[in-house]
């Protein structure tokens, strides 16, 4: 039986495609990862179908590449590394299975996007904290599994928050439900008993869901997940604290993190903020000049109990803390009003994606470090950019405190013109040089996409060995996105 027919037998012929244009679209993305054309695209509609696909892949030694989010894609993780792969397009699994206001959890399938989820949560008085302006077609589950940073550090008790329970089809074809839900034989029965899938750990003495995190689809496929929501804020204000240098903002930021004050809390430079707020390349360029060089964005939200009073005392106290660092809490700065920034932060990205508004392409460099070490990395990227002839004023920097301040996500956004081969080649060289220097300096590439994988794993031989053994347990035939990470 032909491959296409075999898969049609699992998902139905309408959910299998070998359309050349569609295959071409999955063969590449906007990263520098080498294009490889997949063989087919299939669109499962249920966990049972996913399980059948994975079992079939094991029998036929067919590579599978799971994809949940819509285009554009940027990091090469969904581009096959080997020929003959089948794309498992999860975007059709779109059910919002349950929203539980009292326990503040939602159960969703991997095809559900932020655009689709937030309005449904809002009807129940909830919302989900998001990454910085996710694109409209971004899968919530994929974003959380990839450990994308979210905006409210005080709510991040764990690095995978707000992801909680997951149903996983492993590469060996077995199914396992993780977290609280892994201790129940039936979700229906659990709901009946007033339980809710709120806890992420287990089952047993392992945190299985961590093995699929930042795995780029190389361990298994998640077919539903539960997420911990927040109360829909009201009132909700956003303040801007400007400064000339990032270091000037550290004492203030550390103090807020330590007190667990503020909701949204992030540091960003003028270029990044201009990419978020600016209109077209001209507008962005003008805005870069107008905005303060650096700002901390400080959201303050009231929720359910005495909300107005909470916002009032935090506003006053945060202003006092800013004052002690010689800073001011502003509701607007030249080029940006807090209300507009808040509106942007609470939305998905407009079109084109905000990092593509200035030029038709961009490269980002992202890693984990601690807040106090970020200036040295900024210096490094600027120095490499300068040596490469890249305009340093275009470098966007975004520093997101995570895990209640124990570390930060540090991201550089480097727009360039993809259609200009000289610029593209220059950017590729800049990316390599800067990444090598950063990793030498102490940057932790915890989500090692593309060229970062070799760099990261070379530094940690024992982790590489253990990861390979783990991969052998969950995906013994290496059918899940082979060629990624150290696999």
């Amino acid at each position: 039986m032909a491959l296409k027919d075999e898969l049609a037998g699992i998902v139905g012929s309408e959910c299998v495609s070998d359309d050349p244009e569609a295959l071409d679209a999955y063969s590449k993305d906007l990263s520098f990862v080498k294009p490889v054309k997949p063989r087919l695209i299939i669109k499962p509609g249920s966990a049972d179908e996913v399980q059948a696909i994975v079992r079939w892949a094991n029998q036929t030694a067919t590579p599978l590449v799971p994809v949940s989010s819509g285009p554009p894609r940027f990091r090469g993780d969904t581009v096959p590394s080997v020929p003959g792969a089948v794309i498992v397009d999860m975007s059709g699994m779109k059910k919002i299975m349950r929203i539980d206001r009292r326990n503040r959890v939602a159960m969703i399938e991997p095809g559900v996007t932020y655009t689709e989820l937030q309005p449904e949560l809002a009807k129940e008085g909830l919302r989900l904290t998001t990454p910085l302006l996710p694109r409209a077609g971004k899968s919530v589950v994929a974003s959380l599994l990839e450990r994308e940073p979210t905006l409210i550090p005080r709510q991040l008790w764990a690095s995978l928050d707000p992801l909680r329970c997951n149903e996983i089809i492993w590469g060996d074809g077995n199914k396992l439900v993780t977290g609280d839900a892994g201790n129940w034989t039936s979700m229906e029965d659990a709901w009946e008993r007033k339980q809710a899938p709120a806890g992420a750990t287990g089952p047993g003495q392992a945190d299985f869901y961590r093995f699929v995190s930042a795995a780029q689809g190389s361990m298994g496929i998640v077919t539903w997940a539960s997420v911990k929501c927040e109360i829909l804020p009201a009132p909700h204000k956003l303040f801007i604290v400007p400064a000339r240098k990032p270091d000037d903002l550290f004492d203030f930021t550390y103090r807020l993190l330590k007190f667990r004050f503020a909701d949204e809390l992030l540091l960003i430079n003028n270029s990044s903020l201009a990419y978020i707020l600016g209109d077209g390349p001209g507008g962005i360029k003008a805005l870069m000049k107008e905005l303060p060089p650096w700002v901390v964005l400080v959201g303050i939200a009231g929720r359910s109990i005495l909300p107005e009073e909470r916002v009032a005392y935090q506003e006053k106290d945060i202003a006092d803390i800013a004052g002690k660092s010689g800073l001011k809490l502003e509701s607007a700065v030249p080029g940006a009003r807090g209300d507009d920034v808040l509106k942007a932060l609470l939305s998905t990205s407009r079109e084109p994606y905000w990092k593509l508004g200035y030029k038709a392409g961009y490269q980002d460099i992202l890693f984990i470090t601690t807040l106090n070490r970020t200036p040295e990395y900024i210096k490094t990227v600027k120095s490499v950019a300068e040596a490469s002839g890249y305009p340093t004023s275009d470098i966007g920097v975004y520093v997101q405190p995570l895990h209640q301040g124990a570390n930060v996500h540090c991201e550089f956004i480097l727009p360039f013109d993809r259609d200009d081969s000289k610029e593209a080649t220059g950017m590729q060289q800049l990316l390599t040089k800067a990444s090598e220097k950063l990793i030498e300096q102490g940057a932790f590439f915890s989500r090692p996409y593309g060229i970062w994988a070799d760099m990261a794993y070379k530094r940690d031989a024992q982790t590489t060995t253990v990861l390979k053994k783990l991969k052998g347990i969950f995906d013994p035939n290496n059918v899940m996105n082979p060629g990624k990470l150290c696999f």
Partner: protein
Amino acid sequence: MALAKEAYRELEEVVGKEYISDDPALLDCYRYPLSHTAIHIGPYYRVYTPRGAAVLLPGSAEEVQGIVKVCNKYKVKFKPSSTFWSAWGFPLEDDTIQLDMRRMDKILEIDDKNNYAVVEPHVIGATLQAEAMKVGLNTHIHGPGASCSCLASATALGGLGPDTLYMGHHNENLLGVEWVMPDGEILKIGSVGSGLGWFCCDGPGPSLKGLVRGMVGTNGAMGVFTKCAIKLYPWPGPATLPVEGKPPAYKAVLPDNLRAYTLGFPSWKAWADSCYMIFDSGIGYVAHRQFNMFGRDLKGAMVRILSDPTRTLSDIEELLKDPEVQKMTEDMKRDYQIVLAGMTPGDIEWQDKALDKILEETGGWKVKAMLEPDLFNWSLLYMIRLGHKNLNLVFGGGYDGCFGLGGTPDFGTSGEPARVEQVTAFKVEWEKKGNVVACGGDGMMGGIGGMGGGGHSLWENFTHFDPADKASTEGTFEFFNATAKYGAEKGLGPGMEKMNDYARWTDGYTTPKEIRDRILGSAAQPEAFRYQRKFKETFNPNDLGDGYYRTLDDPDE
């Protein structure tokens, strides 16, 4: 079979003569009485854990690695323990090498900017808390109390505690691990593995933190954790706790931004409603149903005894007749304790107002008797320090928890009658038999949180007994058999009373395979334990751990 002379000599070379012993008298000191507080298997009257082959006190990760390599060479099982909380820390088989980690007791680093500490195995909660407070920080103190190892809690065991609502579960707090794996290789997890510092436990790529632990850890059955980094939290109080009073009536007069309340509620529905409102509002520094471990009927009297050094247990009968104590006990029937910690004056005022609003909406109250200055200061210190774990044993010398009712606040408090009342009524009948302390049936103690930011309330029904008394111990064992059966029939989830019987059986040794397979095979997802078997086969090829690691050894079915 004693340890081979050659193996002993090689181990001696690793740690030095003064840190190894196979003296039978000393080895007997490293056995544990399973009639005592064995958590959660029995109790078994006059049964002890097996005698080890030798006890070693390693002083570094390199020495631990050397020991593990010798153990692999001679195929000798090993069992590490830091503060020896309960039977978990003791061997399941004769002739196991026991590692007492007490020499590795250093706080290696406190990063007061990025809020974490790097610790060795024998750093206890009290020590780390005292050091952290000097720089305006605090540490999560887990359920076993301030005298237990922080590292053991964060890596190898549970990790819950009264402050979990604000300071997280230790699973959440773990930022890096140094692990001597069972095959003798050293794995450093997260950023520290790349030599970049201890600030992140996940990556590069899939997180190996998942191999270290889940809701619980591997109980010393999968190698030895020799260092870890844990997240610290703000401490808006003095650099040292101004402790005063005579034991056990320690108290501390702390600044007004630290406040301890005991809250009472008119119904279990109101009790649960208040938990959800606390989770939603984000208030609270510590929140726990703590004093109920003495029992619904006895806690008022016990609080009076424990906060007054002139009183003893023999005063309890008299106190129970005191109308004021009776009123206090009634006010505290459906209760929990909460500590508010304000980072600024505005913060504490808002938190207190928010709490009042929650009480107004639920019909709850701040128990007046607990606002008396002495009780206020006593309970404040008690909740912040959690240094009173000896009181778990105060009635008869032994205790264990049963039922569990783990999950959402609604789970334990819903049903008709509420599940908490169902199990209370069940326990009251057993208390009448005279083998366990009659405390009113409800000895439910546990967190109002269960994970950072709330979401769970986790209870265990404290059952007090006399481990020196055969009838009391065996009667308690029978009671736990009955609760396990009752819990299964009523769908209350896995009971804590038998939580570890898959590992250790009534003779103190490893549970027979057919029983173990039946217990683990009947779990909601036996697949998890089949994967754990594969982890063991892969990373512990000579099977040098013990049965506390849950592996299902049946064929993959």
